[in-house]
């Protein structure tokens, strides 16, 4: 039984580490109702500034912490002033996209400055260990716990008893009312970003020292775990974030204890989904607390979509249809094939996120389900590839809708977080369900695309195949949006209470949207599987989900043509910037930020 004590202690130790990030996220969410995807990047910046201080300048620990906190706070202020403040009157989803763009830029800047090689960040504390149970803890464990708990307490007191704290909470509750009462909302936001960034930077430093290792890939993981912990504790609830983190650490540790290491994250994300379904406001929300999301759909503000004349669409379709007959290289065709595949995924997501307002951050899971189904059907059961791809689409529609259905009662950001978790769960199930998915080894030798017995192997035939499938899906979706079904979807997005009062069954319409969307995404995944011939659990990862969402927001939420234009842009831009080698993702991030800044409603506008 002593092992259980050890598992408990280990869970608390790692929960401690998550808490540092979660507190910063909670603070920002509490005020701005924004999941700050750049928090992990600030954590990364903090770790590297700490490395410079410790290894190059040999600063003592207290000074290191101050240097890192100040520098990170500055980064936070810059982000707030130039990245987010210009967006405060635009669509609520624009700042979310901006933080994603900012995180690209920051991660790339760190990588270019310090090279992607991991570095050692030696701890400056004496190396003494205290025996607890079967293991030991060191002074750094205590320092991390101290910083986490102290900062949470200080913030709690600050928010509750100081004047600026009141202003922050007032802004959180009702921004417009706070402004009318004379609260300088911008100053409040600045304070919040400064504090959260300082915390984020210090946590990067301490965690780096804890593992004696920092590298540029640590930012996304930190954000993911921080978001889980924060939401479990109740989004925006600072002490809740600490308890949520500890709980997350414990669940992971017990998961490892019972089922083994490869199930660890599965438990983390299952915990999140269960908490979201049972207590959507987090474990520690009080019953009389106002719901953290507004009741009606201001999450996606309607805008006037750009009207594209029918003849222009026809001409564009015609040009792309005859493109392979013109002297263009196979490289261009292949890039466009990627764009059409991403376009199908974006069609799916723009329906789910834009038309009915369920912003999904786990859409790559639908690709994976479609891809695995199609690959296994054609390999194991010798189903013809064309049919297998349709099978993949159907499976994605059925399984995707079934997985998401418990989260139908969630709103706004909570849908995104639930779908993020479901996406991770699907990927981990693929990794662990070896008898079906072949686990990490993946599936190789998937037969190439074929239609009625003819193999489609040349880039030209694959181009036409994927283009036609995408156009058909787009036309279907256009029909759908014009029908009464489409109007019902938008009614639910714009005001779900009014829609319900009008007699619309929310769950039924949400299911319908996910069934249609799941099919399109599954078909895209199926085609990709036959195109690649090899897939494993890493082929369709979180980055793809984020990319898909970026495409959809860029094109204009709910906008069918916009989804395709966005897909071509986001597949094309990194290829165009190839000439810039290592700098291309940095340029891509900056272009993304500029687009969000000047077209927050998307290139073609929300439909």
């Amino acid at each position, binding site marked *: 039984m002593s092992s259980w004590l050890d598992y408990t202690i280990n869970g608390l130790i790692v929960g401690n580490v998550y808490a540092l990030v979660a507190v910063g996220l909670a603070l920002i969410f509490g005020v701005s109702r924004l999941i700050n995807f750049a928090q992990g990047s600030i954590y990364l910046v903090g770790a590297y500034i700490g490395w410079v201080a410790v290894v190059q300048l040999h600063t003592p620990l207290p000074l290191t912490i101050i240097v890192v906190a100040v520098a990170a706070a500055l980064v936070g202020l810059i982000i707030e002033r130039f990245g987010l403040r210009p967006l405060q009157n635009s669509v609520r989803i624009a700042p979310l996209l901006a933080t994603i763009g900012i995180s690209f830029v920051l991660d790339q800047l760190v990588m270019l400055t310090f090279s*992607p090689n991991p570095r050692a960040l030696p701890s400056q504390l004496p190396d003494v260990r205290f025996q607890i149970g079967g293991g030991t803890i060191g002074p750094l464990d205590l320092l991390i716990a101290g910083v986490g708990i102290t900062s949470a307490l200080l913030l709690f007191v600050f928010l509750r008893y100081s004047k600026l704290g009141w202003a922050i909470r007032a802004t959180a509750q009702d921004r417009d009312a706070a402004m009318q009462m004379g609260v300088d909302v911008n100053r409040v936001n600045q304070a919040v970003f400064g504090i959260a960034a300082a915390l984020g930077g210090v946590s990067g430093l301490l965690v780096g020292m804890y593992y004696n290792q920092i590298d540029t890939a640590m930012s996304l993981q930190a954000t993911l775990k921080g978001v889980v912990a924060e939401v479990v504790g109740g989004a925006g609830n600072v002490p809740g974030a600490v308890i949520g983190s500890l709980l997350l650490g414990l669940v992971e540790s017990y998961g490892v204890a019972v089922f083994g290491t490869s199930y660890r994250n599965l438990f983390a994300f299952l915990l999140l989904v269960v908490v979201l379904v049972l207590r959507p406001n987090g474990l520690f929300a009080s019953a009389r607390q106002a719901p953290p999301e507004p009741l009606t759909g201001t999450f996606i503000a309607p805008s006037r979509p750009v009207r594209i004349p029918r003849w222009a669409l026809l001409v564009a379709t015609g040009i792309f249809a005859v493109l392979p007959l013109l002297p263009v290289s196979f490289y261009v065709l292949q890039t466009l094939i990627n764009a059409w595949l991403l376009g199908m995924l974006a069609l799916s997501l723009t329906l789910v996120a834009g038309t009915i307002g369920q912003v999904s951050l786990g859409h790559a899971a639908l690709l994976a389900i479609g891809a695995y189904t199609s690959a296994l059907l054609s390999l194991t059961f010798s189903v013809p590839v064309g049919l297998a791809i349709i099978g993949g689409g159907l499976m994605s529609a059925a399984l995707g809708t079934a997985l998401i259905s418990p989260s139908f009662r969630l709103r706004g950001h909570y849908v995104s977080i639930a779908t993020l978790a479901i996406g991770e769960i699907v990927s981990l199930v693929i990794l662990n369900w070896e008898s079906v998915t072949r686990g990490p080894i993946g599936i190789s030798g998937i037969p190439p695309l074929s239609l009625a017995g003819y193999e489609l192997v040349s880039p030209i035939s694959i181009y036409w195949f994927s283009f036609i499938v995408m156009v058909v899906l787009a036309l279907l979706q256009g029909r759908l949006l014009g029908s009464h079904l489409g109007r019902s979807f938008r009614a639910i997005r714009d005001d779900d209470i009014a829609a319900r009062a009008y007699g619309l069954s929310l769950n039924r319409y949400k299911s319908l949207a996910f069934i249609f969307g799941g099919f399109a995404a599954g078909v895209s995944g199926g085609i990709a599987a036959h195109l690649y011939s090899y897939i494993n659990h890493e082929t369709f990862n979180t980055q793809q989900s984020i990319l898909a969402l970026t495409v959809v927001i860029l094109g204009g939420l709910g906008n069918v043509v916009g989804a395709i234009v966005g897909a071509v842009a986001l597949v094309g831009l990194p290829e165009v910037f190839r000439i810039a080698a290592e700098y291309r993702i940095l340029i891509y991030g900056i272009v993304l930020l500029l687009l969000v800044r000047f077209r927050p409603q998307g290139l073609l506008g929300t439909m």
Partner: protein
Amino acid sequence: MSNIDRRTLVKGSLAAMMAGAAFSRAAFAQSSEPILLGVSGPLTGPNAQYGTQWKQGFDLALDEIQAAGGINGRKLAYSFEDSQSDPRQSVAIAQKFVSDPRIVMELGDFSSPASMAASPIYQRGGLVQFGFTNSHPDFTKGGDFMWSTSVSQADEQPLLAAYAVKRLGLKKLAVLHLNTDWGRTSRDYFVKAAKEHGAEIAVTEGYIAEERDFRSTLVRVRDANPDGLILISYYSDGALIARQARQVGLKQVICAASSVYSPKFLELGGEAVEDVHVGTRYFPEDPRPEVQTFIAGFKKKYSGLEPDAFNAYAYDAMNMAAAVVRIGGADRRAVRDAFTKVKDVSSVIFGKATFDVESRRVKGAMNAELVVRKGQFALWDGKPT
């Protein structure tokens, strides 16, 4: 290819004519322009560090090749396209290389999903895909244009098992492995070989690449009561596991696969990696001339930096590419055929590398049994730790 429709055929022949025209232009300029290799690998994204290490190895090898007169009087050069180890991008790069007549062969990609997704395009396009870190057992099964000098895990893991079980005398093992296609394949070969040597496998634990906290995993390991820990890890996660194992009080012998062989392992692991045993393919004091040239050249070019396993793979790969192109010239099919002809290419990893034409891989990697002593890799002196 009877299954292509007529339009495709017309277009295909048009493309072929254009490519032919471009090709003859290239042929005119032959004497002055370098022979170009395409490299598809990660320069940004989560695996960017490995792409950077490849570049170091490539550049060193190219310096030596150029100094020795290049390839029949022409220079050898590479064009590195960043794929982020993402299959979507590696397939686009594959088309780019296939349709660029200057490229005579391709090297990479890094991860299996990215490499093997591009294989059908290279195979159909008739361009060699030379994957020098692709240990996935199915990689070279993608077609006769897929060749690999990645050490087969069927070769490497029995060597590690022999080191751990026969030489170090470990009888009850805990295996921790990266839960990727590489880690999983390696684990299976290791477990099989270790059992043949009479060892018992107490527990195996697979962890994902982003994992940083191993304390709970190590409690499982402790409860299985092994007398040795086997790490099938890369250097960064290997160092994390070793540190945390010592922190939670595990004092067992640790024995790690060659992929941890890097100065970074020592830097990141600190005191915790002292006395860790590593089965590698070469070591700094190795008297073989190719190893000494490599290490001395590397330190000179990169101001004292010690090369690691991935630098060595890339260095070997570029030398192999040079040897192949020397035989095959600038014709893609001849380059493919040259892989069957090339013999005894001097190699850090293999000593002398010759392809097994059947499997399109190289067999017989060198073996060195190292241990970390006083913060340095040293040849194991046979003394127990």
